[in-house]
């Protein structure tokens, strides 16, 4: 008798299946167990209010981890130790998170914690983010954690409340989208360029309804921080989540981190995590192939992340309504080159690009050089730990001596809700994730790019291909 063939499944299906509390039926979605909820000040107050209104407790405070990042100032406290928030309301929001976490016994990494930082930088740094987990947060860039083979996605505030109260979510099973990237990346090409290229290729709604699995030799060769950058922007093509199968790099990154399993638990965990990969023969609902050799240092020219070109290419001269709207807002001409365009502000930071490798990349360009006169440059580490590590390496000195501002950790100018914003009409080269109209302040024009490109553009004061400044200092 021959054995029946073993069923094959994708990474996503394996993670999904182990989290199902109750299967999806014709009448109702699946009930999915959530292993970790990350909480921040902006999308949680109304959820805690709802619990209070209903007289409910947080079911598993031990499965919540909170920090403050969006509304917080990135300037140091004054001589009396006071932080200067953009508004009293911003301070009140942060105070409310303190009160809610204290009331419900949730671990909060606030001003006094070395772990404080952008929520998607903090989770991996603490080892809280682990393969096979379901992770949610009231923030669409939660997909970042998928770099570890977790199923991680953003939710709204009502669902934040659901998870606080029940540790579960109602979910319809998404489709799967395989993005296979093969080959070696060229000089000056980073994970940021890869994901911008992918979004350009499949469009800003190309992933809607799907969970992406990034795979292929290019992905295998990426370090964990690069994988985080790539997964982070999965939402920018509409995907629910992005994932990468865990491997030795993943385990190496996690081993010894404060919340990672220890001793025998670690050995058992790694054995389990090694099974979290798409089986040979398992099919994605859709598969897209990307050739790494086609990817150049990339930069956006328009008002969504899919409006992207290789940095030395010409801006498309489409005459459709979307292109016209974008060109008008961006004050750019179709058919012209973007490289060489004068830059008012450079922002290096955000949950996409604020980790050590990002800061090192920027510093490698800025070392021994000066930021161009008239180009304001902000460098904002993703977390307090990252800030301290960068300072131990002397990266802060490189930035400061180049004439850049070295700021305290936070989301900062990515969404400009803490007061770190540019002026109307400013052209900003930014390592963040969204170039929507007004994202970095009313009337501000955002170009998304890698830390290398941002640093090169800061030095020249113009949009610059980083390859021109790589290698020997000028």
């Amino acid at each position, binding site marked *: 008798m021959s054995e029946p063939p073993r069923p094959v499944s994708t990474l996503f299906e394996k993670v999904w299946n*182990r989290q199902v*509390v*109750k299967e999806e039926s*014709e*009448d*109702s*979605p699946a*009930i999915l*167990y959530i292993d970790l909820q990350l909480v921040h000040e*902006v*999308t949680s*107050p*109304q959820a805690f209010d*709802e619990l209070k209104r*209903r007289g409910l407790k947080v*079911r598993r405070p031990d499965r919540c981890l909170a920090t403050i990042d*969006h*509304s917080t100032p990135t300037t140091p406290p004054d001589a009396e130790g006071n932080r200067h928030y*953009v*508004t009293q*309301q*911003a301070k*009140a*929001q942060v105070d409310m998170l303190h009160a809610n976490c204290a009331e419900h016994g949730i671990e909060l990494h606030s001003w006094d914690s070395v772990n404080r930082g952008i929520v998607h930088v903090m989770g991996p740094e603490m080892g809280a983010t682990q393969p096979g987990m379901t992770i949610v947060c*009231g*923030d*669409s860039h939660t997909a970042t954690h998928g770099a570890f083979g977790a199923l991680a996605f*953003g*939710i*709204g*505030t*009502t*669902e934040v409340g*659901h998870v606080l*109260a*029940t*540790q*579960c979510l*109602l979910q*319809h099973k998404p489709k799967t989208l395989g993005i296979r990237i093969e080959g070696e990346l060229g000089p000056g090409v980073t994970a940021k360029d890869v994901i911008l290229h992918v979004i350009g290729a499949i469009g*800003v*709604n190309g992933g*809607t*309804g799907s969970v992406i699995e990034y795979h292929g030799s290019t992905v295998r060769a990426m370090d964990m921080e690069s994988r985080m950058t790539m997964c982070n922007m999965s*939402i920018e093509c*509409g995907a*629910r989540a992005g994932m990468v199968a865990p491997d030795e790099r993943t385990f190496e990154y996690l081993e010894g981190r404060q919340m990672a399993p220890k001793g025998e638990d670690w050995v058992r965990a790694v054995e389990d995590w090694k099974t979290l990969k798409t089986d040979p023969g398992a099919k994605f609902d859709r598969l897209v192939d990307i050739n790494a050799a086609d990817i150049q240092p990339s930069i956006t020219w328009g008002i*969504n992340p899919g409006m992207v070109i290789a940095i030395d290419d010409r801006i498309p001269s489409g005459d459709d*309504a*979307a292109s016209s709207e974008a060109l008008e807002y961006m004050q750019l001409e179709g058919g012209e080159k973007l490289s060489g365009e004068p830059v008012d502000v450079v922002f290096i930071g955000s949950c996409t690009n604020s980790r050590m490798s990002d800061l090192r990349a920027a510093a490698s360009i800025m070392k021994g050089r000066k930021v161009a006169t008239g180009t304001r440059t902000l460098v904002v580490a993703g977390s307090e730990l990252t800030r301290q590590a960068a300072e131990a390496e002397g990266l802060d000195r490189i930035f400061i001596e180049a004439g850049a501002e070295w700021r305290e950790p936070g989301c900062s100018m990515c*969404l*400009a*809700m803490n007061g770190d*914003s540019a002026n*109307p009409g400013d052209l900003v080269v930014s390592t963040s994730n*969204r170039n*929507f109209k*007004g994202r970095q302040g*009313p*009337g501000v024009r955002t170009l998304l790019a890698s830390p290398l490109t941002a640093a090169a553009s800061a030095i020249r004061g113009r949009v610059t291909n980083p390859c021109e400044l790589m290698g020997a200092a000028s």
Partner: protein
Amino acid sequence: MSQGNVIESRTFVLAQDNIDTDQIIPGHFLTTTEREGLGRFCFHGWRFAGDGSEKPDHPLKDYRPGRHEVLVSGNNFGCGSSREHAPWALLDFGFKAVISSRFADIFRSNSLKNGLLPITVENHVADFLLANPEQLVRIDIETRKLAIDGFGEFEFPLDPFSAYCLTRGIDQLDFILQNGPEIFAYEQRTGK
């Protein structure tokens, strides 16, 4: 006039594709800890200049509360962030439904939890509505029908659970809480 599970209204058109959540409510208004009263920030960057004055000829100048309860928009409406402030703002501004050829996932999910109806239509229906503002439409949540006066009647997709919750006023959190024993059993079984 809208009653119960039926919305009857003229349509209001914002024809752009990819209207993102930063357009619906800009990030700098998110320091609020409330969910009420966000309509005044809805499409704020489109309606108001930097000095707070209303822009002449902005895309919403002809919007009339009460008359326009149904927004018609281009593809991929609500893309971007997970902020539930977006449907809160649209509802407070006066919309009860949005019609588009495609919605971003999180926006769609957030909308359904707040009674803002996201109605996905085929391209030819979207094209007609985008090109012809002020259409009289009737939306019946129970039968999942969108009737466009003089153009046709179309069924729209709405999963049975969301439809059930919307029409019966069932709360999704209560539904999960009813499964407390299953959640407990899962935690025991998996050692979580």
